[in-house]
Structure formats: structure tokens, C-alpha cells
């Protein structure tokens, strides 16, 4: 820390500040506990003498009042004896003389304690009187601090700089020369305010601001971990953009993302918004324990909730009570309990156009079947014979099935719900594992039983329409029935003579996966209907001997392979047909209702019924090549955009949240009820996820406003008023401008929680509008620009760099939203990930869309953004780091994505130069990249460069080289 006065000393809440100013000699006074004493104790003492009982030494706590042996404390911190001295030398922690002095004064004053500043609800501080006419309260607070430190504000930046700064900050795009000129030439007094309003209303505003939010939300387009397969959650990304563009109040913005599904009358958009906590990673590696990785996702949700809405490092309390902040180990799981009761389905975004397209596909499928029937390859007679044989064969399989009444259904983790429909459909929901066992008890049968039928049923709420629950590793919607066991009465196993199925396919290898594999006693083999999701499939198990009437059957169904693959929806029926029965399912017959048609003669069918049977026949006959498969695809085509959402479980079916010893999945301990950490001093006790969300953005949360305004302040000034935006706890930095922070927080929370209004307030301040020229005296006195005697120069984010290059080259495609796209990037970037996936760049204008829409692969992020410090989406990033490396220089010079733009830009410039002359074109090119007009020397240097290149190459190449050099300028990569 190089500031003349460390922020720790200078920072003060309004009340403390007043006390300090009113008092006389600071040395005689008790030091401020919050601002002077606690930072020392937190750094040097709390690890052993703080909140965490497990690591506490000698049962001594220094974080709360109570210890009364003050002489001992003083003696130990001043002792020369290494055996006696605190902190012990082996910890590597030592107290400086000044720190000992602070503690001595504190002890002498009777050790007054205060609550940690950020846990005390902010009050609106009075505006400092700086003796200047300053309309914007921000300037009053900042000027007061500057005066305190003997610094003076910088003059206002020139108008071109202001235009560039505003465009880049609010839209993430540089202004075109024309846009900049319009502002520069607008001499009306309100020109700046109008530009701000114009930019806040721009459709590009939400796209820029969303990127920041998506860093927090750890958004990406793949699942992460080993397989890192694509996922569809872009509707959530678009929701964020739209909400920010619409200036949705922050509280509504947050409540929808945390608990939109629980709102009364939740809309589709409200559900889409819950994708926030579905951005956790999903491990699809073969053989994982899905519940273990669900636990990791839950810990990520707690840590992210803490960082984003509380500014607290809750992750520390996953394994033990927080060593520095008053967050207990139980508190951590208390927060997890709020988030723990949701299921995590896919959500098909309702869309009338998609439904229309699906209907059209089905119509086409029917048409193709009908036309295949009409254009049968052989003669009509041969066709009719084949049809009759098909019908007769299937007719034999039609028997009378009686619904089996399910009296009890259970599984270890899953909920098996017997739906109240006529045929006792069973639906499974909840947490599925690698080996689920369903136990079903059937009501005594009124008649004898010769066979049992299991119908695996499609359901739109299951992954890929079911019938299975597989959601990772295997094909979504698959199931794998590894074993079926039937008992009659209490224990007697019933022998099964044969098993048949309507369809079977194995995802792996050439081994069969028929119903017969489900009765072979081998748990590694089983029945699977891989490849035909969203359809009804049937297996029939014929008993070796009829079971007498009145017997109560008990069934045990085993599901699973190296991934969870249980059945999501099914029903059972029985028959007394002599000799048992065989499986039958007509294609596209979702509830089996069409089978009875097979019993009728041709003349007993109407035309529609006849068509149904003919289509089923055509689909099931051989010799039609790929046609049937194509038709199936057409029939099942899902045109809906899909996204990941939360869905709260019904009351009484929530999960039991437990404390996990050492934070380990395999060490669950006692149950923990949802509760807020006591240290937050909430005046209400939220009961569920929705109430938690509402509390997090209410004034009752002392951190809500502070954390939010601080993060947004950092977007405009490069550093927060609290320079640790993810840690407002004891280990975090104290605020540099505590009164300003509180004023902004209260103002934000009480005036509609409008982010656009907050941005307007900040960018219209004189503080923001200052020049960013670094005056030597400021660099010496305040190198980190804590006191804001100038505006900061900020290196642009990787995404903004690319977008700016697109604008400069005139190639930006402004289309909004939709599935992610793939701009070009160097070969070999994604091949490092498992499966060595190739990156094929999109054609057409998709490669020129804003960087927000670039496909984000977690294990191999888009190279250009990663080089410029963009996050991978693997965890919540509150503030990006900013680096400056030679790899960035190489990327700016040579990345194929940019080179393509340099060439487009250069081609245009070459043509332009023929019309407008070299100098005008050089100036224009410079302005397209850097906004301002080059001065004479700069222009001369550019002219010289161009001429030299022109001697070596054609005009287009020379101008492209110029575009390339301009884009590499420090100025081009910087917000001025």
C-alpha cells in the first residue's frame, strides 16, 4: 500500500468520521475498533482466536467481548520471549510497533467492540459541504476525500474522450467518428445528459451490461468437467439482456433469477430466469456418483449467492465455521437448505412458431408414410399381402390387458407417484442414482395372471421426452432396466418363461439390450430402448405357470448402469391370456389405444383408422431404406428452444439438508433447517427460496445495496470503493469512501433499484468526467488512484476488444439473441479438451456477431477472450483480473479472427483512399479505431508507415497492415 494515508485508517463510517473530526489528539483516543483494531486482529489473531471453535487455541476469543485478562494480552503481544510472544513466531505473523500501539490504546480504553461495519445497516449520510456548487452528490463525497488528502481533481476530459468513454462503458462498443462528432458538435448545455440517455436506451446497453452479470452467474454453453458437452441455456442469457435493457428493478431481477418458479402466477420468463443457479457444472464422466456432483453444484450455489448478494466468502464455511467472519458451519448449510428443494428440469420454451413447425413436421411425416403406401415398391397386390400378414401377426399379440393397481411404490431416493389416472401410471421424480430399485406392490388380482406388461411411457417433462430419467453421460431420456424380479405373496419368486419387447437397442457395443436381458440374473445387462426417445415402448414377461387369482404380486425393478438410467414414467398391466403374451406397440401410439384396431376387419375401420394402421405397417416393414428412420425423426422433431430451470418441489417433498463434516459429501451429519446467519441480524426469517431471494434484495440485508453499488462503481472506475468486491467481511478491504458507499447504497435501495439510474448518476458526475491524464504528483501520492483525482484508463475486456474491432471494420452484425455462434479462432484451441472437439467457425454474418453470443466452452474457452482474462464460467467471478502479456500482443497482431477483420477494414480503406486521398483516409481509419483525430506527428508517422508498406505490397495489404497496427495501439485497447 503506497498511499500516504492507508485507506484502512482514512476510511471511516460517517459516525466515526464525525467523532474523529470532533475529537482532538487521535493518539489519546481509543482507536476505532472497526477500522483500526479489527483489521489487525483479523489478520494476526482470528485464525486461532476467532469465531471457529475447532481451531481456537486456549479457548480464547478476540472477536467478541468477554476476555478480561487484558494485562496478559498486552504482555504476550509485547513479549521478547519467543515462547511467550503472540502471534507465535512459527506462524510467520508479526505485529508492527504501530499495530502494537493501536492494540495498547484499545486495551487502555477498555477494549470497546463494534459490529463489523458492513453488517450494520447503512443510513443515508449527510452530504459533505465542500464549499463548491456540486449538483451530483458523488462529487461532494469524492471532493471531500481529495481535500482531506491534499489532492485536487483533474479537469474535465475533452469531449471526444468523453464520447469514447461513455460508449465503451455503457455499450461496450466504441463510437463511430460520426457518432463522436455529433456529440462534439452539440453545444447545448444538456448535450452530455442527452447522450447518456440515448446510450442507456440503446439496445446494445443490455448486451454489454449482461456480460458483467454473466461473469457472476458463471454462464457457459457447455456442462464443464470431463465431457464438457454443450448445453442449451442461452434463453437465460437472453433473459438477462432483455431485463437489463428494460431496466427491470434490481430486486425483481434478482428474485426472478433465484426463485422465479415460485412466484405466484410465474410466467415462462420467470422460469427461464431461474437459469442463474442452473449455470453450475454437470459432470458427465462415466461412472460418477451423480449425487456427489449435485452436492458440488449446491456448494457452488451457496458460494455464488454469498459472493453476489452478500459480498461474503461463504465458501469458507463449507468445511468449518468461518475463521474471520461470524458465519458458522451450520449457517452455511442453513443457506444451502433454502436452495436445496428444487428439481432441475429442462424447460421447453413455449413458442407458438415452434409448435406450428412441429405440427408441420408431423403432417409431413404422415404425408410421406401415405405416399410410401401409395408408391409401394412392388405391386399393390404384394403390398396388400404384406399388410395382411403384418396385421395378422400383430393381431395375435393383442390380448386383453387389465390395469395392475399399484398399492405401494417406493425407491430409495426417488419419489414414485402413482397418478390418479384410470390406469395407475407411475411417475418417478427426484434424485436418481446409478442403481435405483423400484419396489412395487400390486393389488390382489381378481383373475389368474399369465403375463405382466411393462409400458415405458413418454412424458414431455422427462429429459428428451423420456421414458427414462437419464440426464447425463448417456442419451437423455434413456433407461436401462437391468433386472426385473417378481414375487407372489410374501417371498416366492415367480419364474418367468419368456420376455419380449417392442423395441430394444443398446447405446454401447454390439451386445443386445432386450427384455430377456432383464431376467437373466445379471445386473450388468438389461433392456434399453436407446435411440427412440419420446416414444412408448413395451416389454412383456410371460410366466412359466399361471398365477392363481387373488395373488398379490410384488415387483422389484433394478435400473442403472455406469450412469443413472431409471424409468421416468410407466404403467403395469396383467393378462390371463392362455400361454401368456408377447410385446406389441404400434409406432406413435403414445397410450396403446390403437392396438384394438388390429382386431377389426378392414370393413370395420373408418378411413382415418385405416390410415393409422397403414402408417404403422409402413414404418415397421423392412426394405424401405432410411425412410422410416427419417420419418421417425420428423415425427419426433423438437423445435422448441430448451433451457435449464429450477422447479420447486411440492410441499412435503423437499430434500433433507444436512451439515457435512469437513464439507465432504460422504460425511453428512445432523439435519439443518433453512436459516440466515445470525450475524446478519435479519428482522425477518425467510422460510423458503422465494423469501430468501426477497430478503437478499431488501433493505433489511445490510449488504444488499453496498455490494451492488460497489460492483457497479468498479465497472466505471476499475476498482470498487471496497477494493475486494467479493469480500465485505473482516478480511476484506475497508471502504475508501465509506460515506459515499452508504449514500449510494441507500439511494439505490430506496429509489426504485434502477440500474440505469445508478449508471446515470455515476457517469454524469464530475468525478467520472475527469481527464485520465496521469499527473506526476498524483502518481507519486496516489499511485492506485484510490482518491480519484483523475479518471482511470482501463484496458478493455477481451469481448469488448473484439466488438470494437468489429465496429471499426464495419462488420458488426447487430442481430440479438438466440443460440450461441462460433467466430473463427486459431486451430487447435478446443482440441485440447476431451474428445478433441473441432471448432468449425460459422459462415456469414454469424461470425461477426457480438462477443456475448460466442459459444462458451468451459474446458477450452474461446482463445482470444481467455488471453484477455475472460473467465471460463467454472465459478463466479466478481471482478476480472487484468493482465498485460506478450500473448495478448500476439493475439492482437495475429489472431485469425482479427486478421480477417483487418483485411476487410484494409480493403475498404484502400478504396476510400482513392476517393478521399491518403491523409483523409488515414485520419478516418485512426478515428474508427481510437475515436480521436490524430495530431500532425501521428499522422506523419502513419503516412510514413503506409508509404513504406505501399512500396512492398498492394494497396489493400498496405491498408490492412495499417488497420492491424492501429488496432494494436495501447489506445485502441483502452477506455480513455
Amino acid at each position, binding site marked *: *500500500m*503506497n498511499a500516504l494515508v492507508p485507506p484502512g485508517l482514512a476510511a471511516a463510517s460517517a459516525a466515526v468520521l464525525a467523532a474523529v473530526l470532533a475529537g482532538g489528539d487521535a493518539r489519546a483516543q481509543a482507536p476505532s475498533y472497526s477500522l483500526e483494531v479489527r483489521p489487525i486482529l483479523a489478520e494476526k489473531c482470528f485464525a486461532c482466536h476467532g469465531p471457529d471453535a475447532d481451531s481456537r487455541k486456549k479457548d480464547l476469543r478476540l472477536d467478541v467481548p468477554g476476555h478480561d485478562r487484558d494485562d496478559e494480552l498486552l504482555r504476550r503481544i509485547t513479549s521478547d520471549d519467543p515462547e511467550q510472544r503472540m502471534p507465535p513466531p512459527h506462524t510467520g505473523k508479526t505485529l508492527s510497533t504501530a499495530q502494537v500501539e493501536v492494540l495498547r490504546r484499545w486495551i487502555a480504553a477498555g477494549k470497546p467492540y463494534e459490529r463489523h461495519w458492513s453488517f450494520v445497516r447503512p443510513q443515508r449520510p449527510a452530504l459533505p459541504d465542500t464549499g463548491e456548487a456540486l449538483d451530483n452528490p458523488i462529487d461532494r463525497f469524492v471532493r471531500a476525500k481529495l481535500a482531506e488528502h491534499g489532492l485536487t481533481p483533474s479537469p474535465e476530459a475533452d469531449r471526444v474522450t468523453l464520447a469514447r468513454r461513455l460508449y465503451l462503458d455503457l455499450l461496450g462498443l466504441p463510437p463511430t467518428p460520426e457518432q463522436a462528432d455529433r456529440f462534439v458538435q452539440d453545444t447545448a448545455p444538456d448535450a452530455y445528459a442527452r447522450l447518456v440517455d440515448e446510450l442507456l436506451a440503446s439496445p446494445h446497453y443490455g448486451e454489454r451490461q449482461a456480460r458483467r452479470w454473466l461473469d457472476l452467474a458463471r454462464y457457459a454453453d457447455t456442462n*464443464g*468437467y*470431463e465431457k464438457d458437452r454443450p448445453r442449451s441455456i442461452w434463453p437465460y442469457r437472453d433473459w438477462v439482456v432483455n431485463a437489463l435493457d428494460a431496466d427491470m428493478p434490481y430486486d425483481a431481477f434478482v428474485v426472478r433469477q433465484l426463485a422465479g418458479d415460485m412466484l405466484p402466477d410465474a410466467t415462462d420468463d420467470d422460469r427461464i430466469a431461474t437459469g442463474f443457479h442452473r449455470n453450475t*457444472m454437470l459432470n458427465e464422466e*462415466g*461412472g460418477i456418483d451423480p449425487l456427489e456432483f449435485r452436492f458440488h453444484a449446491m456448494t457452488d450455489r451457496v458460494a455464488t449467492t454469498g*459472493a453476489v448478494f452478500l459480498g*461474503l*466468502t461463504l*465458501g*469458507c464455511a463449507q468445511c468449518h465455521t468461518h475463521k474471520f467472519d461470524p458465519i458458522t458451519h451450520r449457517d452455511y448449510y442453513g443457506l444451502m437448505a433454502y436452495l436445496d428443494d428444487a428439481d432441475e428440469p429442462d424447460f421447453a420454451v413455449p413458442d407458438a412458431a415452434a409448435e406450428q413447425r412441429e405440427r408441420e413436421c408431423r403432417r409431413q411425416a404422415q404425408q410421406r408414410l401415405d405416399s410410401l403406401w401409395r408408391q409401394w415398391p412392388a405391386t399393390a397386390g404384394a403390398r396388400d399381402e404384406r399388410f395382411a400378414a403384418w396385421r395378422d401377426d400383430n393381431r395375435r399379440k393383442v390380448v386383453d390387458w387389465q390395469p395392475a393397481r399399484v398399492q405401494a411404490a417406493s425407491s430409495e431416493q426417488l419419489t414414485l407417484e402413482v397418478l390418479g389416472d384410470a390406469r395407475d401410471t407411475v411417475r418417478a421424480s427426484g434424485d436418481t442414482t446409478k442403481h435405483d430399485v423400484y419396489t412395487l406392490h400390486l393389488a390382489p388380482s381378481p383373475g389368474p395372471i399369465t403375463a405382466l406388461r411393462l409400458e415405458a411411457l413418454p412424458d414431455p417433462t422427462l429429459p428428451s421426452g423420456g421414458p427414462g430419467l437419464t440426464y447425463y453421460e448417456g442419451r437423455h431420456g434413456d433407461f436401462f432396466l437391468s433386472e426385473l424380479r417378481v414375487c407372489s405373496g410374501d417371498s416366492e419368486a415367480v419364474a418367468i418363461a419368456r420376455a419380449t419387447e417392442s423395441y430394444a437397442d443398446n447405446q*454401447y*457395443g454390439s*451386445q443386445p*439390450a432386450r427384455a430377456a436381458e432383464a431376467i437373466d440374473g445379471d445386473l*450388468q*445387462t438389461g433392456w434399453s430402448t436407446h435411440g427412440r426417445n419420446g416414444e412408448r415402448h413395451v416389454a412383456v414377461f410371460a410366466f412359466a405357470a399361471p398365477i392363481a387369482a387373488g395373488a398379490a404380486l410384488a415387483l422389484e425393478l433394478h435400473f442403472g*448402469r*455406469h450412469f443413472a438410467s431409471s424409468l421416468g414414467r410407466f404403467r403395469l398391466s396383467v393378462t390371463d391370456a392362455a400361454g401368456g403374451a408377447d410385446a406389441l406397440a404400434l409406432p406413435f401410439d403414445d397410450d396403446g389405444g390403437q392396438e384394438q384396431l388390429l382386431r377389426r376387419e378392414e370393413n370395420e375401420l373408418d378411413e382415418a383408422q385405416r390410415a393409422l394402421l397403414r402408417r404403422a405397417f409402413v414404418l415397421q416393414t423392412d426394405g424401405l431404406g432410411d425412410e422410416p428412420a427419417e420419418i421417425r425423426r420428423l415425427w419426433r422433431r423438437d423445435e422448441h428452444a430448451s433451457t435449464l430451470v429450477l422447479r420447486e418441489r411440492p410441499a412435503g417433498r423437499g430434500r433433507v439438508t444436512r451439515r457435512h463434516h469437513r464439507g465432504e459429501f460422504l460425511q453428512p451429519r445432523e439435519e439443518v433447517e433453512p436459516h440466515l446467519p445470525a450475524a446478519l441480524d435479519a428482522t425477518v426469517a425467510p422460510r423458503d427460496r422465494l423469501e430468501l431471494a426477497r430478503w437478499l434484495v431488501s433493505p433489511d440485508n445490510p449488504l444488499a445495496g453496498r455490494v451492488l453499488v460497489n460492483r457497479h462503481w468498479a465497472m466505471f472506475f476499475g476498482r470498487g470503493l471496497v*477494493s475486494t468486491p467479493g469480500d465485505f*467481511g473482516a478480511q476484506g478491504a475497508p471502504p475508501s469512501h465509506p460515506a459515499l458507499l452508504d449514500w449510494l447504497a441507500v439511494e439505490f435501495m430506496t429509489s426504485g433499484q434502477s440500474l440505469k439510474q445508478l449508471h446515470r448518476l455515476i457517469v454524469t458526475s464530475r468525478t467520472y468526467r475527469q481527464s485520465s*491524464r496521469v*499527473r506526476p504528483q498524483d502518481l507519486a501520492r496516489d*499511485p492506485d488512484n484510490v482518491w480519484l483525482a483523475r479518471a482511470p*484508463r482501463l*484496458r478493455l475486456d477481451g469481448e469488448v476488444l473484439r466488438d470494437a474491432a468489429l465496429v471499426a471494420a464495419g462488420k458488426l452484425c447487430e442481430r440479438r439473441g438466440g443460440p450461441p455462434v462460433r467466430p473463427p479462432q*486459431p*486451430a487447435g*484451441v478446443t*482440441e*485440447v*479438451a*476431451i474428445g*478433441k472437439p473441432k471448432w468449425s467457425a460459422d459462415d456469414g454474418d454469424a461470425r461477426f456477431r457480438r462477443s456475448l453470443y460466442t459459444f462458451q466452452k468451459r474446458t477450452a474457452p474461446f*482463445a482470444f477472450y481467455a488471453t484477455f482474462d475472460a473467465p471460463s464460467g*467454472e*465459478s463466479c467471478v466478481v*471482478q476480472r*483480473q*487484468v*493482465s*498485460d*502479456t*506478450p*500473448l495478448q500482443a*500476439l493475439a492482437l497482431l*495475429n*489472431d485469425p479472427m482479427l486478421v480477417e477483420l483487418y483485411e476487410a477494414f484494409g480493403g475498404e480503406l484502400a478504396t476510400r483512399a482513392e476517393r478521399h486521398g491518403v491523409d483523409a483516409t488515414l485520419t478516418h481509419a485512426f478515428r474508427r479505431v481510437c475515436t480521436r483525430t490524430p495530431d500532425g506527428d501521428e499522422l506523419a508517422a502513419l503516412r510514413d*508507415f503506409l508509404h*513504406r508498406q505501399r512500396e512492398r*505490397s498492394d494497396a489493400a*495489404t498496405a491498408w490492412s*497492415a495499417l488497420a492491424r*497496427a492501429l488496432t*494494436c*495501439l*495501447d*489506445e485502441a485497447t483502452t477506455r480513455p
Partner: protein
Amino acid sequence: MSHARRPHLSRRRFLADCGVGIGRIGALSLLAQSAIGGSPRPQGPHFAPRAKAVIHLFMGGAPSQLELFDNKPTLTRFEGKPLPASILGDQRYAFIRPDAAVLGPQFAFARHGQCGAELGAPLRHLAQVADELCIVRSMHTDQFNHAPAQLLLNSGFAQPGRPSMGSWAVYGLGAESKELPAFVVMSTGNGLSAGSALWSSGFLPPAHTGVRLRNGKDPILDLSTPERFAGAMQDDTFALLAQLDGRRAEALGDPAIAARIRSFEMAARLQTSAPELLDLAGEGQATLNLYGCDPGEPSFARACLLARRLVERGVRFVDVFHEGWDAHSDVKGNVSEKCEQTDRACAALVLDLKRRGMLDDTLVVWGGEFGRTPMVETNPSLGRSLGRDHHPQAFTTWMAGGGARRGHSHGATDDFGFHVVEDPVHVHDLQATILHLLGFDHERLTFRHAGRDYRLTDLSGRVVRQLLA
């Protein structure tokens, strides 16, 4: 004051302190240096290091220790029978059921060197340098899936987001080379389970991220100048940038501009030094033969040779990833194939370093993320037979040079190779030992982030003294 609170400090941290050509910029950057005050300098070792550099040969997918290092004749006797329940406990598995039958070692073992190290037949080249090796047969981990286990071994934590071992080393040691990045990564096998998180700098300054030396024509991302702009045009471009950025730096007084100018200078140097590094023409046929390296073909052998060249040029940490050891089926075929690709080069690297006098201060570490089960993996519905599943309880790693004990075999497993029964070495212990050899107390090489001091070894780890020379 931590770096996390002052992100821009990292602006100066890629290739450490390198000379600056232009006079006035030099002056400005001196100003910048003094302004930074707290110094971008590395932490510096806590005590005299034994190793100056590390070459980590990471065998992704997890090689079978039971075929290569841990000879268990008992498995042959029990072949076809399940493991005794007393051994098994309640371990979870990825693919097999715990009652799967035992599978005997697929290769013969023999003793090698004066130390008598016992090695499986596929390691016939490594056997030649047995007396240089420090073989740890008692490794164990907490993770039984690839991505988390690879992350644990390479970053000390099973979830992504932590700094990798190489990043910690560079954070501690700083760079020695002014021409090349301090932490270089190569991958010559299949795609990696945990992807780029394996060499991420996590929350350390981004400049500590490993730089990939790629297999394609551009060994470093975006290294080559497009032909259209190459040659004199590129020189002019660098000159123009230096001129205009220099003027701007003077006008605005922002030290960050000086840093950016330096980055471009270093980029220019990389454009020369990287091709020089990759040009194996001067290596001599004997050396190429020793490694089994075709200079024109990317391979594990070429990566090992490049690793030596990198270390020669002052690079601190080299990761060579070779994924593909995940033998769920046909463990015999897998081990044969992978050893064919790697065994000669591993031995050559040790030998070559020794001949050049570099082995004493270069630590070579070889190993995977976990071991493989004594039980067979057979699964007809997956088309698998005679494989081995993931086994976190026991696996083998070896080290050579850099202060590791020569000709030493450490630790032992039970008769089934299931549990470690003697001198267990946890992944964090291995990491603590590696850091120790680099001159660091693993408990003191820390970084403040998200409210606490983080370190490579998370909350555990101890230096295994018996592994030190």
C-alpha cells in the same frame, strides 16, 4: 498487500523484469516500477532450493500400477475370485461392482539396477535408469473420477478454479528466461479430462497461467505473423507501435502504457525464441535416437526433448500431458501401446539430463491421477473385458533428479495392491515435497483470495523426507 486487491500489479508479471529499449519509455517504466513499490518480484524461495525446474510428465487417464510398478503375484493366485471382504470395505466404483473378480498382472516383473527396483516388462527403457528413480508405490488420492482427480493432482483441489502446480511454482520462483514463458504446457495424447483448468493460474495473476506449446504449425497461439504482414512489414509495425505508444505514454503519463510497450517487445522476442526452441536440427541424430523422436512429428518423445530444451533456456515448469491410459478394457493392450509411446522418451529424458549435468537441479515427476483396480472390469453391455477400473487407494509415481532420492522405492501396498500398508503418500504430500525441492515451505507459499490464504496443498500435505536425497 495481496495481488488480488491490486489486479493491475500483474501487468508486469509475464517474463519478469526485462530490459526496455527506448530511452524515455525506460525512464517511465522505472517510474512505474518505483510507483508499484511493493514490487512485482516473485515471493522467492524460503530456503535453498534443490531443483531449479520441474518437468511433470502427467499420464492422464491413470496408468495401471499393477502392470508397471506394483508386482502382486497374489493376484494371479486369486484370479477369477472376488477380493476378500476384509480388503474391500465400502469403496464406491465408477463402472464395476465391488464383487468383481481379481485380475492378475498382465506382464512379468524383474529387478533392475543396483537398487533392484522391480519394474514391469513394458518399462524396458526406464529399467535402464532405475538407479536414478525414486519410485513411490504408496500414492493415494481422494477422487475416483478423472476430471476431479486430475485437478487434485495438478492444482491441489478437485474442482476447477485453483492455481495449478506450475502457476504456484512460477508465482514463487519468478521467471529466469527473458525469452520464453516461465511455465510451459504440452499435450501429446488424447484430449484432457480436465482441460485447460490443469494449467490455469486460478486466482493467481493471470500471467502465471501455463503457456501451451502446441503441436500444430503455430507452437504458441497466434505466434506466427500472417505471411502478408511478415518480414519488414512486421518490423515496421513494431516500430510504429513503439513510436505512437511511446508518444502517448509521454503525453498521458500512465505507466500501464510502458508495460504494454514491453509486452510487444517480448512478443517480438517470442517470435524468434520459440522457433529457435523448436528447431531440433542442432540436436544430433544420437540424441534424436535416444528419445525416439522424429523432429517433424509432434509426439511425446518430441515433447520430452523440448522439455529439456525449455529447461535449458531457463523455463521453470514444464507440463507434458499424455492422456490415454484409461484401461477399462484390455489393460494389457493399453499398457503396451502407451509404453510404446512413452517409455523410451521418459528414460531418455532422465539420461539426457544426467549427461548434460542438468539432472541435479531438474526434477522429473511421472504419474497419473489415480491407480487401477486389482479387480477386472468386464461389462458385456459396454463391450469391455479384461480391463481395470479407477482405483484411488493406491497408485505409483516416480521422480528423478532435482534432489529426489536416487535408486529408492518407497511405500508398499497389501498383497492385492488394494490398500497402501506402508508409508502412504497423499497427493498433497507429493505436492508439498515438490515445492520443498523448489525451496518452498508449502504452508507459507500462500495467496490471499476470497477471504483466506490459499495454498497448493489446500489444508493438508507434509514433506516426505524419505523421498529426499
